[in-house]
C-alpha cells in the first residue's frame, strides 16, 4: 500500500507539476516585490543592496541574535553573497562548490562539487562571489573559467561551458548576471595579462550569444589607446556583478586595471576600456557608452566596484544616475542613460586629482605619475575601496560605502620593462617600491560612511581601527549592516551612523551582508572567516 500511495503521489506530480514557482526574470527584475527572497547578487539589479524587510529595525535590533552557523570546508576567503529563494539559501564554498541550505536552520540539502583544473591561476585567492538563478537553474563561474548550470533542486550539473582558457590565466570569480534569457559573466585575470571580455550565454543551452572585449581590437575605436601590441594582453578584467536598467536595456560593468599593473611605459595611451564603466546593450553586447575613471592607470585602480543605479532628484531635476565610489579615491555621479559625468570629487584624502576637463576626463596633478622618483600617493595602490559592494537606501536617500584611508610611497626601481613577475604581464613587485600600507593612525583606518548623492559629502561615518573588505547592506528598518577585517558584524543607524549592535564573529569579513525572511521571520546573513552566520530577532 505504501508503494501504491507513493506512486499515486508521483503520478499526481506529473499532472499538476511542481508546486513551487520558478524564478522568472520578471521576478528577478521586480525582486523588491518579494523582500523575503534575495534573487541576485545585490538583491535587485539596481545593486542598491537594500532590503525592504523591517522586522529588524532601530528599535528591535537589540534582540538580534545568532540563529545558525554554516561552516565551509574551505580555507579560502569567503566572498560570496548568498541567494535565497523561497526558504532555500544557495551559496558557494570557495572555490567552486555550490551548496543548498535550509535558510531557517542552515542545515544542508546538497552540495555540488566542481574540481577546478590545476591550470587555474588567480592573483588574489581562489575565490567566488556568488551565483545567479533563473528558473530552477543556478549559474556559477569557476576559477578555471567555466560557466556551470546546476539544477537548484537536485544539485545536478546541467551544462558546463568553457568560457575561456584557464591555462591562459583566465578565471571567473564574479557572480554571473541573468538578464532575460541570458547568463552573462566577465573574465578575471587582469593582473596576469589576459584580454578581458564579457560574454553572454543562452541560459538553457550554455551556448555563447555575444561577446564584448573590454580592449578593442585593431580597427575598432579605442585600439589606438594602446601602444604597439600591448592591447593583446592588456588586462581590463571583469570580476564583479553588473547592474541592469530595463528602461534602456543597458547593462553596466566596471572593468579592472590595465596590465601590467604599474608599468605604464609598455602600454602608452589611455588604455581603453580599462578602469571604466561600459554600458552594453543587454541583447547584443553592443557598446552604447563608456566612461573611463582612471585613464592610463599606473596604480592598480581597478574599477570593478558594482554600479549602483538610483533615480534621484538631482539638484532639482529627476535623473537616472549611477553612483560610483571608485578605487581611485574619487566618487562619481554619472547619467546612466548617456554616460555623462554629472559630478565627481575625492571622497578620501587625495593628492593627484586635478579635476575634470570639459569632457569629464580626469585631470592629473602634473608630475603625479609613477617614476623612479619616490612619491607619496593618496590613496595608495590599494585604493580607497576594492570590490566590496556599497548600498543605497531610498528611505534615507543616502549612499553607504565602506572604504579606507591610506597612502603610500611608490617608485619604480630598476629597469622597466624586464622580468615581469611570476605571471607574464604582471609588474614584478620587486620593481615597485611600495612603502608600508599605512603610515600613521590618521590614515590607518577603515570606515563606513553615508554620502549625500547631491553633494557627495559624508553625512556620518563609523570608523574602525582596522581596514575593511566588507560590503554593506541597508534595510527598511533604517539600519546599515557592515563589518570589517576585525571580524565585527555591525548594525548602524542608517540616518545617524550610531552603532546600535555588534557581534564578534572571530574571522575577517570579506563579503557583504544580505537579508531574507522565512515564514515571516527576518534573517540577516554575513560570511566571516570560513563560515556563514545568520541572525534574527530572539523569539520569546
Amino acid at each position, binding site marked *: 500500500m505504501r508503494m501504491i500511495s507513493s506512486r499515486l503521489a508521483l503520478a499526481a506530480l*506529473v499532472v499538476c507539476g511542481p508546486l*513551487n514557482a520558478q524564478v522568472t526574470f520578471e521576478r528577478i527584475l521586480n525582486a523588491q516585490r518579494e523582500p523575503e527572497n534575495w534573487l541576485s547578487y545585490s538583491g535587485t539589479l539596481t545593486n542598491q543592496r537594500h532590503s525592504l524587510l523591517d522586522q529588524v529595525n532601530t528599535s528591535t535590533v537589540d534582540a538580534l541574535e545568532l540563529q545558525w552557523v554554516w561552516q565551509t570546508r574551505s580555507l579560502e576567503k569567503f566572498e560570496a553573497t548568498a541567494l535565497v529563494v523561497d526558504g532555500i539559501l544557495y551559496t558557494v564554498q570557495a572555490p567552486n562548490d555550490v551548496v543548498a541550505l535550509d535558510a531557517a536552520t542552515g542545515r*544542508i540539502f546538497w552540495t555540488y562539487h566542481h574540481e577546478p583544473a590545476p591550470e587555474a591561476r588567480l592573483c588574489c585567492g581562489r575565490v567566488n562571489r556568488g551565483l545567479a538563478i533563473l528558473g530552477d537553474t543556478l549559474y556559477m563561474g569557476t576559477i578555471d573559467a567555466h560557466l556551470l548550470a546546476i539544477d537548484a533542486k537536485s544539485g545536478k550539473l546541467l551544462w558546463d561551458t568553457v568560457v575561456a582558457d584557464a591555462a591562459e590565466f583566465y578565471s571567473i570569480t564574479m557572480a554571473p548576471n541573468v538578464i532575460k534569457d541570458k547568463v552573462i559573466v566577465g573574465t578575471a585575470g587582469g593582473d596576469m595579462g589576459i584580454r578581458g571580455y564579457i560574454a553572454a550565454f543562452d541560459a538553457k543551452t550554455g551556448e555563447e550569444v555575444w561577446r564584448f572585449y573590454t580592449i578593442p581590437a585593431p580597427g575598432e575605436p579605442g585600439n589606438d589607446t594602446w601602444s604597439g601590441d600591448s592591447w593583446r594582453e592588456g588586462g581590463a578584467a571583469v570580476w564583479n556583478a553588473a547592474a541592469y536598467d530595463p528602461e534602456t536595456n543597458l547593462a553596466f560593468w566596471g572593468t579592472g586595471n590595465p596590465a601590467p599593473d604599474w608599468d605604464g611605459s609598455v602600454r602608452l595611451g589611455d588604455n581603453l576600456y580599462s578602469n571604466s564603466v561600459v554600458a552594453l546593450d543587454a541583447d547584443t553586447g553592443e557598446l552604447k557608452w563608456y566612461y573611463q575613471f582612471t585613464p592610463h592607470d599606473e596604480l592598480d585602480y581597478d574599477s570593478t566596484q558594482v554600479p549602483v543605479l538610483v533615480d534621484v532628484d538631482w539638484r532639482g531635476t529627476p535623473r537616472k544616475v549611477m553612483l560610483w565610489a571608485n578605487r581611485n579615491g574619487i566618487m562619481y555621479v554619472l547619467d546612466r542613460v548617456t554616460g555623462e559625468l554629472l559630478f565627481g570629487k575625492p571622497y578620501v584624502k587625495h593628492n593627484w586629482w586635478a579635476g575634470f576637463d570639459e569632457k569629464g576626463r580626469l585631470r592629473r596633478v602634473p608630475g603625479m605619475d609613477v617614476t623612479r622618483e619616490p612619491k607619496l600617493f593618496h590613496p595608495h595602490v590599494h585604493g580607497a575601496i576594492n570590490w566590496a559592494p556599497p548600498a543605497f537606501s531610498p528611505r534615507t536617500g543616502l549612499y553607504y560605502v565602506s572604504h579606507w584611508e591610506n597612502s603610500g610611497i611608490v617608485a619604480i626601481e630598476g629597469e622597466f620593462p624586464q622580468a615581469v613577475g611570476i605571471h607574464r604581464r604582471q609588474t614584478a613587485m620587486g620593481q615597485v617600491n611600495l612603502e608600508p600600507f599605512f603610515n600613521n593612525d590618521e590614515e590607518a583606518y577603515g570606515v563606513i560612511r553615508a554620502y549625500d548623492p547631491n553633494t557627495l559629502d559624508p553625512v556620518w561615518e563609523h570608523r574602525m581601527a582596522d581596514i575593511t573588505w566588507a560590503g554593506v547592506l541597508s534595510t527598511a528598518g533604517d539600519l546599515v549592516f557592515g563589518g570589517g577585517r576585525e571580524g565585527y558584524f555591525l548594525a548602524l543607524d542608517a540616518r545617524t551612523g550610531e552603532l546600535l549592535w555588534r557581534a564578534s564573529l572571530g574571522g575577517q569579513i570579506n563579503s557583504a551582508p544580505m537579508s531574507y525572511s522565512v515564514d515571516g521571520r527576518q534573517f540577516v546573513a554575513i560570511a566571516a572567516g570560513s563560515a556563514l552566520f545568520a541572525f534574527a530577532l530572539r523569539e520569546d
Partner: protein
Amino acid sequence: MIGKRLPSWRRHSRSTDTTELGFRIRLRSRMGMLTLILRPFSGAMGADLKGIIPIVLLVLAVGLAPHALAQHSTAFDIEDGRRVYEASCANCHGPDGNLIAGIDFGHGVYRRPFSNEELADIIVAGIPSTPMPPAPGMSREQAFRVVEYLRSMPTGRVAAAEGDPRRGRAVFEGKGECLDCHRVDGVGSRVGPDLTRIGLLRRAGELERSLLDPAAEVQPENRFYKVTPKNDEPVTGRLLNRDTFTVQLIDTDERLRLFQVADLRDHGFEETPMPSVRDKLSLQEIADVVSYLSSLRGEATP
C-alpha cells in the same frame, strides 16, 4: 526452473553486502592478499554457500546438465551468478572485476581467452600455486552461473542480446512511466535518481537488476524517507540528510524540505517506491530499456 524467483534466503544479501564488500576490499589493501583469500570462506559468504547446497541437490535431482543450463541461462541465472560472484569472488577481484593485474571482467579482459568450460573449471578447482583458491563447496552449475555473470559484466546479458535504445527510450518515456520519478536531460522528476549519465555509472547488468529487483540495491543517496508531522499529513521523499534534530528531503512535489524532529510524530526509511518491471515489461522491452539507459552518458540521446 531454478532461480525464476529469488529465494528468500538470498534477498537479504543486498545493500548491506555491498558495504561489507567495500570494507573487505579496504582490508585487502591494508592487510595483504592472504587475508583476502581466507575471507571468502568465512562470515556472510559462508552463509551464502550453505544456501547453495540445497539448490545443487535440487539440480542433480531433476537431472539437468549444468552446462546445458548455462547455455540457456536467463537474466535470473545471471543475477544468481552475480550474488555468488559478489560473495565469493569480489573480495579479490573487486566488485568491478578489475582489482587483479591483467584482469578486468567488466571490460572482458582475461589473462588469455578462456572458454566457459575452462572458466568454470578454474572457479571450482582454483589455480594451483597461485592465490586463486578452489571452491570445493561450489557446484559446476553454480560456477557456470558465475561465468555467465562474468560474461555479462561488460554489456549486461539482456542488452547484449538485441536491445534497441530507440525502442527502449519509447518504453522508458511511455509504457514504463519512468519519467514519473526519474529525470533525463532535464526532463522528468527529480525525486528519483537522475539518469542522465547512468550509462557511465552502471553496467548493463546492474541496470537490468535494478529494473527487475529495484529494492536489491539502493544507493544511500537514493533512499526514500517518510516523515509524519504531529499536526499534518505524512510527507515522503528522497532523503538528503538527517541529524539528531532535523530531516532534509526532496519531497514528491520536488521541494527541498526541512523538518524538525521535535515536530514529527514518526519518521523513517521507506522501501523504494520503484516497482519491478518484471510483470510490466517483456524481456525484449527490458533489453530495450537497458540498452537505452546504457546509452545515457550525458550526451545527446537517441
